[in-house]
């Protein structure tokens, strides 16, 4: 399939990228991994007048901790996160998610920041970032940075709250209140498929007590769902069969699944319950 014609810019600096998008305004699209954007352009669901390919801008392919928080650059690929010892040690929900994103070729190219910008309701990373209290850092041509919680960044299916002229330069995960435990459970029809149901669980614990819980769902609503009441049911508590059951029930109630080719609404809601219960009961979650 041939995309419609577009003007192509391959800036070497962020300043050059801002110049390019200023010239085209809303008609410009940023191209990072391209694993969602290029299929959309090929199918002509999108036909941007200008594509600004940021892959040649140095300094965006990183993920590092600073002052206790984690910052992930706009060109950090899923592949890097999949192999990250930093994630393995400190961000279990992210480390569990990375190898479940699409397939190896997509992971070699696609980026976490781009995935969240794309705001596909089936995207796994947005749920993960919701569970972690994550944020997107948007920069404008004047160099002013705006920090937007992912809960406010994703405003609808395939819609984010970037303003014209802004570029999402990084994602940020704030410092944990205690030790992070957690996992990501994903049911898929076959390897590499979008989630039938995905459940992100992030617990920040001291000893056996949950200081802060993050639970978010993929594939069971018109957007990723943050399960606020289930999170509150765990805060300040220890994990036992009663608190786990209560959180799992509240999460299932928060889901808004629709019956489709991947399963009935009832089935998906049941899987949400099972995954929250399983995730909170797992050794990864409970080993304090």
């Amino acid at each position, binding site marked *: *399939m*041939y*995309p*419609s*014609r*577009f*003007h*192509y810019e*391959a800036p070497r600096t962020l300043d050059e990228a801002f110049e390019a998008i200023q010239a085209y305004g809303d008609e410009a699209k940023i191209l990072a991994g*391209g*694993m969602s954007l*290029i*299929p959309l352009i*090929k*199918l002509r669901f999108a036909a941007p007048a200008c*594509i600004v*390919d940021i*892959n*040649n801008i140095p300094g965006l392919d990183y993920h590092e901790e600073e002052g206790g928080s984690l910052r992930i650059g706009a060109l950090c690929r899923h*592949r890097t996160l999949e192999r990250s010892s930093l994630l393995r040690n400190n961000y279990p929900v992210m480390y569990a998610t990375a*190898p479940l994103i*699409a*397939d*190896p*070729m*997509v992971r*070699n*190219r696609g980026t976490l920041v781009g995935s969240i910008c794309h705001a596909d309701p089936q995207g796994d990373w947005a749920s993960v970032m919701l569970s972690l209290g994550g944020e997107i850092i948007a920069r404008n041509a004047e160099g002013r940075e705006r920090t937007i919680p992912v809960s406010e960044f994703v405003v609808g299916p395939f819609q984010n709250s970037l303003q014209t002229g802004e570029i999402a330069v990084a994602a940020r995960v704030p410092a944990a209140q205690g030790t992070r435990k957690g996992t990501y459970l994903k049911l898929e029809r076959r*390897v*590499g498929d979008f989630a039938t149901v995905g459940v992100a669980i992030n617990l920040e614990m001291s000893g056996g007590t949950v200081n802060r819980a993050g639970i978010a769902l993929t594939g069971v609503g018109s957007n990723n769902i943050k399960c606020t009441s289930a999170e509150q049911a765990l805060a300040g508590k220890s994990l036992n069969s009663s608190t786990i059951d209560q959180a799992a029930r509240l999460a299932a109630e928060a889901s808004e699944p629709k019956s489709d080719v991947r399963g009935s609404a009832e089935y998906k809601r049941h899987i949400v319950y099972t995954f929250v219960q399983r995730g909170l009961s797992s050794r990864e979650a409970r080993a304090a």
Partner: protein
Amino acid sequence: MEERRINVVVNGEPKSVDVEPRILLAHFLREVLGLTGTHIGCDTTNCGVCTVLVDGLPMKSCTMFAVMTDGHEVTTVEGLGMPSELHPIQQGFREEHGLQCGFCTPGMMLASKAILDENPNPTEEEVRWGLAGNLCRCTGYQNIVKAVLWAAEKMRSEGGAYVLGGRSRR
């Protein structure tokens, strides 16, 4: 019509070509360079048939614009080995009957190369995860996995770096 000059090394040979930005890497390889070993299957980023190596990593050439390879290295199945000097992965696919219709084979072999570059001694499970993005419509996965394991053993026993495209030893 807008065109851009790109400088890309394909199978060890530097190329300097003007391309329209909307031309996909898969079309560039097949129609501009005549390297028809790269097949196009689903054309929707699902099947992995069009897989090539970009700077050594497998990528879906239907989901990259050719202009994005400016300054990079691309390896297609033609660069893996020649009929006179097959790469061990190609030998493995022959020895273990790792193909039926052959349509997915180039992508399978390039994905396999990346698996073995990173992990010379993979388990069967690791091979299967590594090939998770490559679909075989004949569903001949059993022998494909055997072929990769055959190649892994052969490469370990010979302990050497392999010639890509019979050109440069690295």
